[in-house]
């Protein structure tokens, strides 16, 4: 909100007055000299309560009719170039009507410690002609969730950032799934980085798997692991600010709490773990929602899996069963496999070749054509190691930027399945309550939870997690540009949505329809969000919160500088 005049004290806080409307859409006349913005939060004071309201629409109003304005405008434009056409008391004749909706009713002087609910929904209309003032930091004290929550940003009234932190209950939001939605360039990645950083800051016990398709979170470089040049040989301490952007690795606890896996082999940052997965870790259902197999192909795959267990891929790829005219040699394996047609097997092979990067080398041996899957004896513990780390409450970042999308998803599936299975087991044994909550962060989420992927009753591990993961403390943090393509049932399960700017009406509607608070009037509000501005709607916040997300670099810079000189170790002996 802007103030155009320099009127003095007492009256200065008043910004408008109720002049009409209906419940949920109260009309306010804007005070002259005030320039309200969509998203501004206003306060209406009652005896024991404050009611917070938000501007969601603005329009002109005038005492004169339109014809009159048209005429005056004509005079002004065409005849009087000196701009001398003046109204008598223009502020009284022309003004702005702001439409506001109540957000929440707050008990004055209440604090969460009192036990009584501090904030409630409003159910009444504010008295006619009541005056509203702009919001102050005092008014938002009730939001103080203590230091234990996950910091996401500061409250915003319109584009004005208030010094009031928005913290979300960390143990709840992750298991109840988070959706982060915006068009490109509006700050999704920045938000995720900042949230992960603050997960590290908090003392909460949270394990997170990040499938980092752009390799942007750990080092701060986009395509981060391939940082070039001579600085590679040196420990991180030498890379000063200005030389490179910040990433999670700059967090003082990164060594203990963040693990970074990459397939990029050369010029890797020290500490990078090799993302190498033994082919034996891959099971048929890891392709669910990633690769489309026909009924017949599925049948063949499951037969191979049942017969050969973890050797199924090797055998499927290498045992020669192709022969359609029945003249095949009578080997035992051939015999057992003959019920599948050569074409079925060939199609499966081609798909596996594509997704896993496998191929059949000379002398019919299985080879890996890419750097992530191993067909020999390596990488057998990687999945276990990663899951262990998540289970210990660490953040595991997988640089999947070098992988095909399908390959990335299969890798994600393998880990997600392992994690969910483990946690299901812990639920049974009663160990679950001692385990950290977990979340899987995935970019371009419609790749796995889009309606087209989940069509005709198909499911996959992500859809399963979205639907029932919370019982097992496994959640999804889905990042997307498109929310409209995610089935309603899944969107509704994402209990916290962080909505950044979006110019596509269809997308905004999908978000509004599935929001935890009534956002039906917030279309314009969402459309007008600037970079880094967001609205958080969640079952865990008292109202849809307008926030400003901090710029990650600002967050990291001070802490990282602090870190660089605090290490002190001695080699004994």
């Amino acid at each position: 909100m802007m103030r155009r005049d320099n009127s003095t004290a007492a009256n200065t806080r008043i910004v408008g007055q109720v002049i009409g409307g209906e419940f949920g859409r109260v009309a306010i006349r804007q005070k002259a000299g005030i320039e309200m913005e969509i998203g501004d939060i206003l306060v209406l004071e009652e005896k024991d309560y404050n009611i917070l309201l938000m501007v969601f629409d603005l329009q002109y109003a005038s005492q004169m009719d339109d014809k009159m304005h048209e005429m005056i405008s004509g005079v002004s434009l065409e005849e009087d170039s000196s701009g001398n056409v003046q109204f008598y008391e223009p502020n009284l004749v022309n003004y702005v009507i702001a439409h506001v909706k109540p957000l929440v009713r707050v008990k004055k002087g209440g604090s969460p410690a009192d036990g009584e609910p501090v904030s409630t929904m409003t159910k009444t209309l504010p008295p006619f002609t009541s005056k509203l003032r702009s919001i102050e930091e005092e008014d938002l004290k009730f939001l103080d969730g203590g230091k234990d929550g996950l910091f996401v940003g500061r409250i915003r009234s319109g584009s004005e950032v208030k010094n009031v932190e928005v913290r979300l209950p960390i143990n709840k939001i992750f298991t109840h799934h988070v959706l982060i939605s915006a068009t490109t360039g509006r700050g999704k990645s920045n938000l995720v980085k900042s949230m992960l950083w603050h997960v590290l800051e908090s003392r909460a016990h949270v394990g997170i798997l990040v499938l980092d398709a752009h390799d942007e979170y750990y080092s701060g470089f986009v395509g981060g692991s391939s940082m070039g040049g001579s600085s590679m040989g040196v420990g991180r301490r030498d890379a000063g600010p200005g030389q490179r952007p910040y990433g999670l690795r700059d967090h003082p606890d990164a060594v203990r709490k963040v693990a970074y896996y990459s397939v990029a082999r050369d010029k890797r940052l020290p500490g990078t773990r090799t993302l190498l997965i033994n082919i034996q870790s891959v099971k048929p259902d890891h392709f669910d929602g990633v690769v489309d197999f026909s009924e017949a192909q599925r049948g063949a795959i499951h037969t191979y899996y049942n017969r050969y267990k973890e050797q199924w891929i090797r055998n499927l790829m290498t045992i020669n069963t192709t022969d359609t005219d029945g003249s095949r040699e009578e080997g035992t394996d051939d015999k057992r496999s003959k019920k599948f047609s050569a074409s079925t097997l060939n199609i499966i092979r081609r798909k596996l070749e594509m997704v896993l990067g496998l191929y059949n080398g000379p002398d019919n041996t299985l080879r890996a054509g890419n750097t992530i899957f191993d067909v020999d004896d390596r990488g057998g513990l990687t999945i276990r190691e990663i899951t262990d780390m998540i289970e210990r409450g660490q953040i595991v970042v997988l640089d999947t930027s070098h992988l095909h999308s399908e390959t990335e998803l299969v890798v994600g599936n393998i880990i997600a399945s392992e994690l969910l299975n483990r946690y299901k087991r812990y639920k049974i044994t009663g160990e679950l309550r001692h385990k950290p909550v977990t979340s899987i962060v995935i970019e371009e989420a419609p790749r796995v939870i889009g309606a087209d992927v989940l069509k005709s009753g198909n499911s996959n591990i992500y859809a399963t997690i979205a639907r029932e993961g919370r019982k097992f403390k496994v959640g999804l943090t889905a990042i997307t540009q498109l929310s409209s393509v995610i089935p309603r049932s899944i969107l509704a399960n994402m209990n916290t949505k962080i909505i950044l700017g979006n110019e596509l009406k269809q997308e905004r509607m999908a978000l509004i329809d599935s929001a935890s608070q009534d956002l039906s009037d917030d279309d314009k509000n969402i459309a007008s969000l600037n970079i880094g501005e967001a609205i958080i709607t969640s079952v865990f916040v008292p109202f849809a919160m307008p926030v400003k997300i901090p710029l990650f670099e600002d967050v990291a810079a001070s802490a990282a500088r602090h870190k660089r000189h605090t290490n002190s170790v001695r080699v004994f002996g």
Partner: protein
Amino acid sequence: MKFAHLADIHLGFQKKESLQSMERKVFEAALDDCISRKVDFILICGDMFHSNIPNMNVQKFAFAKFRQVYEAGIPVYVVYGSHDSSPNSTSVIDLLVETGYIIKVQKTSQTSEDGSISLDFVTNKKTGVKLTGLPGLPASREIEYYENLDRQSLESEPGFKIFLFHGALAEMGPAEAKGQDVAKWGDSMPISYLPRGFDYYAGGHMHKYVHRSMDGYSNVVYPGTPFAGYPSDLEDNARGIKRGYVLVETDNSVAGGVYPDASTANTSAPLRVQFIDVPNYQYELLKIDANNKSSSMVYSEIDKRIDAVDPDGNMVILKVNGTMSEGKTTDIDFDKITETLLQNNAIAVEINRNSLSSAEYKIVESKGETNEEIALNTFAENIGGFKSPLGELMGQKGAELAQKLLQSLSMPSLQNESLAVYTERITGDALRIMRIDDDDSDGDDDSDSDGDDDSDNGGGSDGDDDNYKKELWNKGGEKG
């Protein structure tokens, strides 16, 4: 040029006489082989000894052997391992270094204010080979070291370079998640922490031979233990895993003295990395599945199966695991089995029954608000399965006694309390609780091979912890 690479010898690990002598025999054979092959130098990458201060006769034996190697003119380069080092007390390694028989390569030239660690090279005079490395460290500190290692200076050093280290590298891990190795691999470190471009990475800590090359890291090698450092190593021996050391050769002669400048050594001088077998025992391995069998069935099965093995001149390993349907584990007289085998000229007998249990004595975990409550409820719930002629050990009384005992035994040591005083105090308390006055326990727990369970937790890492804790106590004592 030619050098030998050994690790994880664990001298002093074996407690039984016959195994002890094999432990030494293997070590001697390996070093004798090095001498007769006239290697230019020997690398020993940690855990040469099973503890930082092994008992006197182990030390004497080792000194004599190293003296022989020394007199043959073969330098021995070492780093500490996880067993033979101690963060706050000395190690027998230091004594060997003092005498000049061995050379420690972990030399920090400077630990600068910003925390960065620079390492110096040790140059082998005869060959010009440059060596450096880092010792085995507790997992948490290991990363801290490597995080702060000044890699640049290490990588830009010209010449033929060897990096010695002691620890698990993730990229060297096994595909199969079996046995104790897994627990060790759990703490593994990514190879990207090591400086790149060395010609040879001489590793220790993993007890099986592995040799791999990968981008930026050629010839990363664990020779494995030459005999055994954990109970499960013997089992692996019985399964036929190869034991010995690694011999590395290049065609470049050392006649000219200094090795020719080889900043790109791994292309100009391909290494031949060869595993040299050092034989130890012949083994007989017997595995008995006790699941769903009564103790008497298991006992008679063991009897029958043992009849079929030929103990004469062999080491016999008997592994019994599973949950028996009835009877007690003590129904099976393992002592007698051992005796019989020894009478039939078995060289040594190892019995592993750590994962043997009985359904009759299965422990059911109970719930409760506090740990004490959980313990008490668990005791109360399970004590019914326990029969004893002593009434006070059974029922509610027994549960309460067990609970008190557990509580007393889990008391930590006091500040500045020495291990000896602590042990005495704790045992005294326990005996008082049990109202046993006569004191004949002298803290000797070597029998029953430490009860180390090698199948579900790494015996090795347990050892580390024990060592470490002992050190803490010692430290406390010294301070006070």
